[in-house]
């Protein structure tokens, strides 16, 4: 038996549990309750102002969250990877650790903290909590790329007369873009699709796109739920096209 045949069981598995389910999302999205073809589910979304509003809010929150995570996370990753500024491996572990703790638990703890200080749950707490949950996912891939980066590039730039500022913007930042784009991938899509997190952080006042998918599926409106899932899949397709697939850099290294 050729060793390439060892991939066959997995290919069969992927076909049943990955490809077929996605095809079913497509099929259900274009069916009515009786299994007849229809585009009503899709048109329903585009004429439903509630759903459209939720969609817009989700994208807005996701963009804001991603931007804040980059603004806060990039300097942190840069400092952590800089041997002169940070020598301790413990700080790096401390930044990674929240990724390993159940997001629901962390979110709940955050929401309780807000409650204790009497802060009303709403848009502000939602953003704060989201940044909180996803910041490590931005820091880690950027840190990984910066850490593995060949230092001789920035040294060469320095030798050739670049100021530290120029070295940073013209050498370090461009070379670390793969880390940033995998960070975006790990922050943006989860923000749009999360449902429990936004429910906890706003006390159900603000709904995100994930929540309406969940509500439809749970109230047996499978076809409309599938149509909403399909719309989300299309957005994922678009975001993945914009950012190269850098999951391997994101996942490698420290565990």
């Amino acid at each position, binding site marked *: 038996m050729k*060793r*390439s045949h*060892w*991939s*066959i*069981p997995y290919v069969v598995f*992927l076909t049943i*549990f*990955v*490809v077929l*389910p996605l095809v*079913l*999302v497509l099929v*259900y999205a274009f069916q009515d309750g009786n299994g007849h073809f229809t585009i009503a589910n899709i048109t329903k979304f585009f004429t439903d102002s509630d759903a459209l509003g939720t969609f817009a809010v989700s994208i807005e929150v996701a963009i804001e969250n991603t931007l804040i995570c980059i603004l806060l996370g990039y300097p942190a990753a840069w*400092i*952590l990877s800089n041997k*002169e*500024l*940070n020598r301790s491996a413990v*700080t790096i572990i*401390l*930044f990674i*650790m*929240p990724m*390993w*703790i*159940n*997001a*629901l*638990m*962390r979110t*709940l*703890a955050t929401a*309780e*903290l807000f*409650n*204790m200080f009497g802060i009303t749950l709403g848009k502000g707490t939602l953003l704060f909590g989201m940044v*909180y949950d996803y*910041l490590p996912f931005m820091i880690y891939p950027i840190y990984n790329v910066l850490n593995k980066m060949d230092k001789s590039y920035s040294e060469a730039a320095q030798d050739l007369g670049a100021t530290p500022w120029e070295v940073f913007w013209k050498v370090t930042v461009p070379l670390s873009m793969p880390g940033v784009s995998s960070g975006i*991938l790990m922050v943006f*899509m989860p923000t*749009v*699709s*999360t*449902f429990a997190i936004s*429910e*906890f952080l706003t006390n159900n006042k603000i709904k995100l796109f*994930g929540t309406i998918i*969940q509500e439809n*599926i749970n109230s047996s409106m499978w076809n409309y739920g*599938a149509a909403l899932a399909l719309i*989300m*899949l299309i957005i*994922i397709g678009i975001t993945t096209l914009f950012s190269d*697939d850098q*999951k*391997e850099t994101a*996942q490698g290294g*420290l*565990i």
Partner: protein
Amino acid sequence: MKKFIAQTYIWILLILLYAPLVFIAVFSFTESRVLGNWTGFSARLYANLFTGDMQGSSSLLSAVENTLLIALIAAAVSTLLGTVAAVGIHHLHGRTKQAVTFLNNIPMINPDIITGVSLFLLFVFLHFSQGYVTVVLAHITFCTPYVVLSVMPKLRQMNPNIYEAAMDLGATPSQALWKVLVPQLRPGMVSGFILAFTMSLDDFAVTFFTRGTIGLDTLSTFIYTDARKGGLTPELRPLMTLIFLIILILLVVINVRQAKTKRTV
């Protein structure tokens, strides 16, 4: 000066990041039902957690049990399936290899909710009643790609001739497998297993959509339902604290060991 600003920035972020966790840990040592209300030091909640003497205890403890069992089964099966698959994919060429790698990437790119909803539709479509089995299958689906990704680099580093050499020297294929291939891949398999195990522990959305209506709860779904009912089971506080501590210790041990082996090499 620069170093001082940098360190301050890092520590402010860390303090903010850990405030809720510390908050939970502090209030795990008081009996009050409502968080943030300190009614004096007490280790009652910890005692309750271990003796199971509390309201709704059986459901919390069985949720913990389910979580661990599901994670263990899913991680074990994913490691087996993923390692075999990685060897196969490593020996594929050209278009086929690209196609299979692409398929393998899909579950990692898909948000949990899409994985959850699509698998839910699959089980509905196949008239497969949802419960333990469907949750485990769903977890295997999103865990295996990470095992494949962890094992692949080890295959690339491996000298392809060792396996052939073992065969030339008279090893049976199964001896070559267990004495040559598996030892070479073991580090990748171990990190794949750990990754799969924690992914499964962490999961909420996929479990939520594939657990059916038989009342199966993992820790995540338990917390979700509990929080929606309003008022969190107080015993969750010591439980979370213990989980934070275990994970912190594990991460420190793993990383210190890694750093040591790197230094000695």
